[in-house]
């Protein structure tokens, strides 16, 4: 089925790396053609090509397996979606369950993070968030920024931070050994200096002082999101900035806390004593914001926050 495809039709304007990635993905997941066609209907921009090049470099020889992992993730998310739509809540409610099922199982976690790596390109809201991180958030950091990412997972956000000229030091904390191994793989593949990594729960790591903290798609994994944001506040130097990204109405195997509106996330950030610099709302699958709100579709909600001086 995939041999008959014309990549240029799927993603008008796609560069060579994106074309190769689309071909590899459709070889593993031909049923995804309609979704990808719609994803790229408006055309692929330079950011997509640079992201495709990066992902291809990280994947190396393993590209076919990563594409299988993405297919698996799409299936896992679909199962959670069915539960969520029926019950109006996420399946898991405790961090201990998510840790046992996901973070502490290297095979499961690796598959999950590999799938999530490809979703950065295939899910338009993920791409929009990543582009905003690079083009809107990072340029607002001062020079010599001490940057921390809590929960770097596949490592793509941490890589972009490291590649930004303003970043002086790069630190990653994650509760999953598999995630830390993937972050190392990501940096090695791109031949970037390894970040300083710590295997730790964000609530247990020692307090430090950071000028910049990325906290992306972790809040919804926690039982106590308010306490986590208080922690982010305390880890920031006065005047320091945080990139806080969490989805609304977005079930996944390890999501625990359901945010039903973007405002619920923004309010939580304010309640932690942080100031809001900017907010991005990116609905999934190219839906308009109105439609996403009306149908309770997933919306990536990103808050750039600042610790007051």
């Amino acid at each position, binding site marked *: 089925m995939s041999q008959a495809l014309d990549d240029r039709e799927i993603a008008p304007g796609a560069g060579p790396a994106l074309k190769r990635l689309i071909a590899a993905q459709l070889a593993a997941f031909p049923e995804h053609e*309609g979704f990808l066609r*719609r994803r790229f209907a408006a055309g692929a921009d330079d950011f997509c090509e640079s992201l495709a090049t990066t992902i291809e470099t990280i994947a190396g020889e393993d590209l076919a397996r990563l594409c299988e992992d993405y297919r698996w993730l799409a299936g896992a998310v679909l199962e959670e979606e069915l539960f969520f739509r029926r019950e109006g809540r996420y399946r898991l409610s405790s961090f201990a369950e998510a840790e046992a099922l996901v973070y502490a199982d290297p095979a499961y976690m690796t598959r999950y993070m590999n799938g999530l790596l490809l979703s950065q390109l295939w899910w338009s809201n993920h791409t929009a968030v990543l582009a905003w991180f690079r083009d809107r958030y990072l340029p607002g950091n001062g020079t010599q920024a001490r940057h921390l990412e809590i929960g770097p997972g596949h490592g793509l956000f941490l890589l972009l931070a490291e590649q930004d000229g303003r970043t002086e030091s790069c630190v990653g904390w994650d509760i999953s050994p598999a995630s830390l191994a993937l972050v190392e793989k990501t940096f090695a593949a791109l031949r970037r200096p390894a970040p300083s990594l710590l295997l730790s729960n964000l609530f247990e790591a020692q307090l430090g002082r950071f000028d910049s903290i990325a906290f992306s798609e972790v809040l919804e994994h926690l039982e106590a999101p308010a306490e986590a944001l208080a922690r982010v506040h305390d880890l920031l130097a006065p005047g320091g900035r945080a990139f806080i990204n969490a989805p609304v109405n977005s079930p996944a195997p390890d999501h625990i806390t359901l945010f039903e509106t973007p405002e619920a996330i923004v309010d939580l950030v304010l309640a932690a004593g942080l100031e809001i610099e900017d907010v991005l709302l990116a609905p999934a699958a190219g839906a308009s914001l109105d439609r996403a709100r009306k149908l309770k579709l997933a919306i990536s909600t990103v808050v750039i926050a600042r610790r007051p001086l």
Partner: protein
Amino acid sequence: MSQIQPELEDILRTLFDEYEGPITGALTAAEVEQWDSLANVQLVVLAERTFGVRFSTAEIAGLANLGALADLIRAKQG
């Protein structure tokens, strides 16, 4: 698809607001751009609520077109 059809049509028009073609029993996901696998879950669960039925995962996966969904609902309603 008699009485079931108008309600299913309402659900489809809400979920797939970009689709302007006719809604018949022969309609498949391939003909409606917005009808991807996630939207299919939303469709099925809205149908479950509206008609007071419950589908198994195998039944959901095996649905060929809208008419098949209507038939299944009718069979479940007895």
